[in-house]
């Protein structure tokens, strides 16, 4: 086992990884930008190193600063978390060249899966179904011929693309020529590369992914699926497992495909195979995320496996402690991502200070938070405040528990949160029925507006009494006590008496 691990990340995922290390008796080094000097992950770690100014390009993406820190403080491994350097094969090679272990897959597996074209080819070779498409040539004439063979609607995609850039939906042959031209322009502008390919458009798909774990000795297992169809701006906001769409036969076929996908690229460590599933329950490989996934906690709760500890043990050379047959799903888990964003205005980030954050606590509720009271949600990083995760006995129980938890999550300050929006999504008949496809939010919540009814009297009374009672008991500036103890967390003006 490792002696000391550097966590090359920030926020909730850095906290999550530090915790796992502490429970395993492994020392930790945090890195932080100027913006994160007082963050939870920095104070929880045994040591912490400043690696630069707030912009990621000057700190969390500075592989040189991070490797320097790891060497200087005697680390023997680096955990990249998700985002930042986690899917950068060059960083994997730099880490290994420096004599440190990278807690993630080999650079080569990462490279193959990082290329849309190479990944498609590897999957086809391994017998994993991919979305029907055409990529043999980038020539417009060839593409137009292939398009007619594929049929419409279809997708034009940039070979170098990502984040929806250089992507066009083509519903009708007449639109094709323009779509190719504008996709090429956009891709050239964005990536300096105007190569394109075609894919059949899977309409109203479910986005379902499978978690895999692979050790160094060729053992690969899957830890079942996650249903991630509730998305906005192509980003997941609610994930759950098991998927309401799944049946045992489909689960077995998709699980086997996921394992085959990982084996095809010599994968080691934790990874996620994303699939699209169409109305006829055909599934297609979409991509592989070669790292820990944001939504990994729901799998942990339903499969009873700690994925971060598993990652660390695998990287330290331990074999998988279970076989596929020993794994099982129990209960139903849901994750809601709590964002500082405005669902009524296209989910744009709505950043600012979080004056007070009171997280729900209780049986079956887990909060992986990156922001706490007094913190600022800034433009520098992802505006996710926390992941709220519940485990219930079944899906209906988990939905009610999540609603309870959202109801009791108090976030006060300049930020706008998506909590009211999430509650409305959970209550939607299609969500309750488990019939969510990736267009669900756009189709049903495009014109969502928050309840703007005026505050009830008790809210105004709370504001007024809080002001009156606080003013009455505030300490004098020289520290003398006006009323009781200014350092007491409690200042009482009016005790309760028998109310009957």
């Amino acid at each position, binding site marked *: 086992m490792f002696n000391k691990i550097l966590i090359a990340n920030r926020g909730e995922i850095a906290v999550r990884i530090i915790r796992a290390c502490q429970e395993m008796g492994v020392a930790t080094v945090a890195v932080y930008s100027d913006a994160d000097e007082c963050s939870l992950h920095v104070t929880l770690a045994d040591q912490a190193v400043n690696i630069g100014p*707030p*912009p*990621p390009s000057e700190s969390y993406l500075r592989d040189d600063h991070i490797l320097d820190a790891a060497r200087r403080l005697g680390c023997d491994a680096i955990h990249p978390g998700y985002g930042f350097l986690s899917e950068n094969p060059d960083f994997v090679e730099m880490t290994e060249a420096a004599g440190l272990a990278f807690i993630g897959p080999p650079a080569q597996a990462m490279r193959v899966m990082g290329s849309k074209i190479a990944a498609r080819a590897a999957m086809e070779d391994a017998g994993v179904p991919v979305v029907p498409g055409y990529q043999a040539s980038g020539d417009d004439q060839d593409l137009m011929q292939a398009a007619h063979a594929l049929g419409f609607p279809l997708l034009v995609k940039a070979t170098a693309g990502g*984040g929806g850039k250089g992507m066009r939906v083509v519903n009708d042959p007449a639109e094709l020529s323009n779509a190719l031209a504008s996709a090429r322009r956009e891709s050239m502008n964005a990536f300096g590369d105007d190569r394109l390919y075609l894919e059949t458009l899977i309409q109203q798909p479910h986005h379902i992914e499978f978690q895999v774990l692979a050790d160094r000795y060729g053992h690969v297992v899957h830890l079942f699926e996650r249903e991630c169809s509730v998305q906005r701006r192509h980003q997941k906001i609610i994930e759950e497992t098991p998927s309401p769409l799944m049946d045992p036969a489909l689960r077995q076929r998709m699980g086997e495909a996921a394992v085959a996908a990982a084996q095809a690229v010599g994968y080691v460590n934790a990874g996620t195979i994303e699939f699209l599933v169409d109305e006829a329950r055909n599934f297609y490989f979409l991509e592989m995320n070669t790292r820990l996934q944001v939504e990994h906690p729901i799998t942990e709760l339903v499969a009873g496996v700690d994925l971060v500890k598993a990652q660390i043990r695998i990287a330290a050379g331990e074999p998988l402690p279970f076989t596929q047959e020993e794994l099982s799903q129990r209960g139903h888990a849901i994750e809601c991502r709590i964002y500082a964003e405005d669902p009524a*205005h*296209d989910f*744009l*980030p*709505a*950043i600012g*200070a979080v*004056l*007070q954050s*009171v997280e729900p606590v209780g049986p079956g509720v887990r909060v992986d938070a990156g922001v706490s*009271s007094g913190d600022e949600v*800034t*433009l*520098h*990083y992802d*505006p996710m405040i926390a992941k709220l995760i519940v485990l219930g006995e079944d899906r209906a129980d988990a939905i009610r528990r999540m609603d309870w938890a*959202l*109801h*009791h999550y*108090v*976030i*006060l*300050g*300049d930020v706008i949160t998506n909590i*009211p929006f999430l*509650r409305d999504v959970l209550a939607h008949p299609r969500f309750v029925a488990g019939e969510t496809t990736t267009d669900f939010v756009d189709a049903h919540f495009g014109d969502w507006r928050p*309840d*703007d009814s*005026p*505050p*009830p*009297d*008790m*809210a*105004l*009374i*709370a*504001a*007024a*009494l*809080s*002001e*009156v*009672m*606080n003013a009455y*008991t505030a300490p004098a500036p020289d520290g003398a006590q006006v009323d009781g103890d200014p350092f007491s*967390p*409690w*200042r*009482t*003006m*009016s*005790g*309760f*008496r028998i*109310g009957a």
Partner: protein
Amino acid sequence: MKRELQYQVGDRTVTVIVERDGDRYRVRVGDREHLVQARLGDRGRIDMGVGDRRLRAYVARKQDRTYVGLDGQTWTLTKPDARRRRSGSPSAVAGALTATMPGLVLDVLVAPGDVVIRGDTLVLMEAMKMELRITAPADGVVVAVGCEAGQVVERGKVLVEIGDGKQN
């Protein structure tokens, strides 16, 4: 002891009058009266009792804004009197909105002289692969605009200046 407080709720001003009455508070909200027991806790908590009902609210304040969380909802209340006070003091105007990180200006939605309400979007930016709205932190009048669509701005660049609308 009797205190009168005013809160701006949307375009409405609500007066709340608080008076001690033995070990309770007699609170008038508009023409409704409530007899309330109350106790402050940590983290901005206030526990209240009205007859059989017990409620736990959370309150935070920052400048002229009061944030209340109650029964799964949150509200932002502003103080009309604080705004009046502030209007006499030019140093207290909302001031300049600067870019907190480098980025691309996608659109500028206001021009000098525009009256803006707190929360209005002034500028759309793209930075860190995200689209960002720069919004008015308070009601006021746009005094100057320091950027234009398509411009790449450095950190610290003044995007929009907002004044309180008084000629100083």
